[in-house]
C-alpha cells in the first residue's frame, strides 16, 4: 500500500522507503507525503518554517509507537505536534522529519474529581478539558492565552504557563504522570498517580523538554478546585512604573493573587477599539488583578490591594460587578494579540522573565530598543511573574523590517537576562532562542542538559537541533536555515 499523494512526487528515495514502512504499520490515510500536508505542517505559530518530510496522524499509543519504531529503525528524525500554537519554533520539522500529529488523540480517559486528577490524551485542548469538567467543580490550572486551541500535549512539551499560573504554578506542577513513547520505541510511564514513585523524577525531566525526549501519549493531570469567590479588578496608572510598583508591593505584602496582568497604553487602545469595554485608554498602563478563594479572604485582599494601589498613585479602580463584566475584562486581555491587526498586520511576540523589581527598568529599555529600531512595541504581560511579552509590530511587506524586528527582539532578550532574568518564561527555547542559550548557561551547564537528553535519546532522533546549541558540530545540520525566519 502506498501513502496518498496529492502532488507531484518529489519525495527523496530514502523517505519513500520510510513512508512505505509507515504504511505497513498504520492505515495509508494516516500517512501523508503530499505537498498539502508537508507544507501545512511546516511551521508552528512562530516566525520560522521548514517543510515536513512525512506527516503521520496518530490515533493511539500503538500508532505513535509504530511511527517511532520506524523512525528509530531507519534513522529518521521525528517531531511530535499538537495544535501547532507554539511560539518558539519547537514544532518546526527538522529536515526530512516525520511529523507525528497527536491532534486526533483527543479523548478524556478518566476523571477523579474527588482526588482531583484526570487521564487525558495529548490532543485534548486545554480549554476543552476545563469546560468538560466544570460541572464537577474542578479545572486544569495552566491557561495559556492560546488555551482555546493549544493541546495538553503541547502544554507538556513546553511546560506552558498562563495568567493564572502566578498562584498555582506552571504545567510541571500539574502533571502527575505521563505515558511516553521513548525515542527507541519503548513505551513506559513516568511518575504516577501515587505521590512518590520509584526512581528519578523522569516525569519532571520530560515536562518542558520540547519533544526531544520522546512523545507523551497519555497525561495524568492534577485538577484544582474552582474558587467559590472571585474578584476581578482593573487598576489604571499614569506611569508604567507605578503599576509595576504595585505588583511588587502586593506580593511583598503577603498576597498571591490568582493573576496580575499588565497592559500598556498602546495595548489598551488597540483592545478598546476591538471590544469597547470602557478601558482607561488615556492612562499609561492598566493592571488586571484577579483574587480568588473563600469570600472573607477575597474581600480582605481586595481592600488591601486598594490601599496599596492608592499609595502607588492609582488613577481608577474598576471592580467587575458581575460575571459578564469579568469575562469582558478578560476578553480584553486575551484578545490583545488579535486586536493588534488594527495597528500593523504583523507582530513578533517575545517572552522573557525578569525579577519583579526590575520590571520598570526593563520595560523602559524595551521602549528604548523599539524606538531605536523605529518599531512600535506593545506590552501585555504576566506582571505578577515578571514575565514580559513585548509585541513588536510591523508590516512584513516593508523592505528590511524583518531584520530590524529580529535584531530588536534579540536585544530585548539580552536586556532581560542582563537584569537577572531568563530567556523564556513559558514559550520555550525551540529554534528561536537556541543560539541565545549561552547568555544564561555556561558550556558546562549546557553539557549537563545534553547529557540528560542523550540518556533519553542516544540516537538523537527526537526533534533534533532544538533547544541546545551545539558549537562542537556547528555544520549545516545545526544551522537555522536561511529563510527559515519568515
Amino acid at each position, binding site marked *: 500500500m502506498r501513502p496518498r499523494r496529492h502532488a507531484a512526487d518529489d519525495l527523496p528515495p530514502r523517505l519513500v522507503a520510510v513512508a512505505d514502512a509507515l504504511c505497513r504499520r498504520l492505515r495509508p490515510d494516516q500517512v501523508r507525503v503530499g505537498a498539502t500536508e508537508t507544507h501545512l505542517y511546516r511551521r508552528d505559530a512562530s516566525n520560522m518554517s521548514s517543510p515536513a518530510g512525512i506527516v503521520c496522524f496518530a490515533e493511539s499509543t500503538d500508532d505513535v509507537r509504530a511511527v517511532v519504531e520506524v523512525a528509530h529503525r531507519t534513522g529518521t528524525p521525528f517531531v511530535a505536534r499538537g495544535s501547532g500554537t507554539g511560539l518558539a519554533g519547537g514544532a518546526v520539522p527538522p529536515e526530512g522529519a516525520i511529523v507525528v500529529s497527536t491532534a486526533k488523540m483527543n479523548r478524556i480517559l478518566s476523571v477523579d474529581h474527588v482526588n482531583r486528577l484526570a487521564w487525558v490524551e495529548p490532543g485534548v485542548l486545554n480549554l476543552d478539558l476545563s469546560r468538560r469538567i466544570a460541572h464537577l467543580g474542578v479545572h486544569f490550572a495552566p491557561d495559556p492565552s492560546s488555551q482555546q486551541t493549544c493541546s495538553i500535549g503541547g502544554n507538556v512539551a513546553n511546560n506552558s504557563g498562563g495568567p493564572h499560573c502566578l498562584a498555582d504554578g506552571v504545567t510541571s506542577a500539574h502533571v502527575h504522570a505521563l505515558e511516553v513513547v521513548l525515542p527507541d520505541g519503548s513505551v513506559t510511564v513516568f511518575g504516577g498517580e501515587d505521590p*512518590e514513585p*520509584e526512581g528519578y523524577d523522569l516525569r519532571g525531566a520530560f515536562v518542558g523538554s520540547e519533544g526531544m525526549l520522546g512523545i507523551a501519549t497519555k497525561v495524568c493531570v492534577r485538577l484544582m478546585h474552582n474558587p467559590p469567590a472571585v474578584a476581578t479588578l482593573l487598576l489604571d496608572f499614569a506611569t508604567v512604573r507605578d503599576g509595576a510598583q504595585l505588583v511588587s508591593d502586593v506580593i511583598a505584602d503577603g498576597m498571591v493573587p490568582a493573576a496580575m496582568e499588565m497592559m500598556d497604553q498602546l495595548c489598551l487602545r488597540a483592545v478598546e477599539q476591538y471590544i469597547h469595554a470602557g478601558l482607561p485608554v488615556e492612562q499609561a498602563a492598566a493592571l488586571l488583578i484577579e483574587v480568588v*478563594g473563600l*469570600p*472573607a479572604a477575597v474581600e480582605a485582599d481586595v481592600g488591601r490591594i486598594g490601599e496599596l494601589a492608592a499609595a502607588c498613585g492609582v488613577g481608577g479602580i474598576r471592580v467587575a460587578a458581575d460575571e459578564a463584566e469579568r469575562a469582558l475584562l478578560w476578553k480584553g486581555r486575551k484578545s490583545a494579540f488579535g486586536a493588534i491587526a488594527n495597528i500593523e498586520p504583523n507582530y513578533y511576540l517575545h517572552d522573557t522573565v525578569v525579577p519583579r523589581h526590575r520590571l520598570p527598568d526593563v520595560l523602559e529599555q524595551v521602549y528604548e530598543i523599539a524606538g531605536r529600531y523605529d518599531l512600535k512595541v506593545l506590552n501585555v504581560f504576566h506582571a505578577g511573574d515578571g514575565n514580559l511579552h513585548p509585541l513588536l509590530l510591523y508590516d512584513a511587506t516593508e523592505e528590511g523590517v524583518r531584520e530590524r524586528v529580529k535584531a530588536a527582539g534579540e536585544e530585548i532578550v539580552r536586556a532581560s537576562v542582563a537584569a537577572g532574568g531568563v530567556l523564556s518564561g513559558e514559550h*520555550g527555547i525551540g529554534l528561536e532562542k537556541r543560539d541565545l542559550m549561552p547568555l544564561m548557561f555556561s558550556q558546562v551547564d549546557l553539557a549537563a542538559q545534553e547529557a540528560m537528553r542523550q540518556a533519553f535519546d542516544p540516537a538523537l532522533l527526537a526533534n533534533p537541533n532544538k533547544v541546545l546549541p551545539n558549537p562542537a558540530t556547528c555544520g549545516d545540520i545545526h544551522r537555522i536555515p536561511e529563510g527559515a525566519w519568515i
Partner: protein
Amino acid sequence: MDLTLDEFADAVGRSGAVSITGDGTRGGPVRSVPIVRAPAGIVSVDPAEMTVCCGAGTPVDELAEALAEQGQRVVLPPGGTVGGAMAVGRSDLRRLGDGALRDAVLQVRYVSAAGEVVKAGGPTVKNVSGFDLCRLLVGSRGTLGFFGEVIFRTRPVARFQGWYAVDGDPWDLLAGLYRPVSVLWDGIRTWVLLEGHPDDVAAQAARFDLRPAEGPPDLPTGGRWSLPPSALPALSSEGPGTFVAEIGVGVVHHVDPPPSRPVDPATRRLHERLKQRFDPAGRLNPGVSVLAGD
C-alpha cells in the same frame, strides 16, 4: 555561605568515591568513603520576589526561621538540611495544599561527578529555558550530583491556620472543603489542616462540624508507602493504629515497610543510562540506588 561553591567543588574533587552528608537525619552518607558537606548559610531572602537563596547545607529549621521573620515559608519537611531534604525529595504533610517540594525548586548549583559547578534552572519564579535538570536532581539521592546552592520559590504565611479533627469520612471533606492544606485519616478519625482568613476557616469548620485539634496525630514510622489516592479507602481493612494516610495525596505512614513495587524495564534502562552519563565512574554516593530491587 560558610564555604564557596568552588571550595565545595574542590572538596568533591574529580576522582575517587565520595559521599555527602548533612545532619544525617535522612539516612546519612555512604560509609567508608570520603565524605563532604555542602555550603551552609542563607544568601538572600526576598519576599517581594517570593524567593530565597541558600547553601544546601543550611539547616531546614534555620531557613524556616529566617523566612518566618519575613512572613514567608518554603515547603520543606522539618529537620535536617535543605540539601538532604532535596536529595530525598519527600514533601511534608502540607503537600495537598502546597504542592510537592520539587515544584518549589527554581534553580540549583550542584557539583558534578567531574568536580564542576553546574547551574540548572533559573532564578525567577517562572522559567522554561532549557531542560529541567532541577526536577531530575530532586530525589536523586546524590547519585547524579551534589547540591551546593539552591533558590526556592517561597509563599506567604497564611493569616491563620488551624488543625481540626472529626470522626467523619475524609473523602467528603476532601471534596467539600475548599483547598484544605492537609487531610489525614487513620481509618477512624480524620484530621484537617485549614488556613486562610480566620472567618473563612471558621465557616468551613462549622459547615463540616470540625473540632479544633492540637495538631496532626503521631505518625507510624515503620514505612512510608506511596499509593494512588484512589487506593486509600482499601486501607480501612487494616487494623486500627497501623497507619495514617494523607488523603488526596497517597502517602501512607505505616507501621510496616512498604510493599515492593515493580520497575518497568524501559524505565530501569533509562535510569542506568542517566547514571552512566552523569557519573560514568560511579563515584558519587557509591552503592546508593534510587530504584527498588537494586
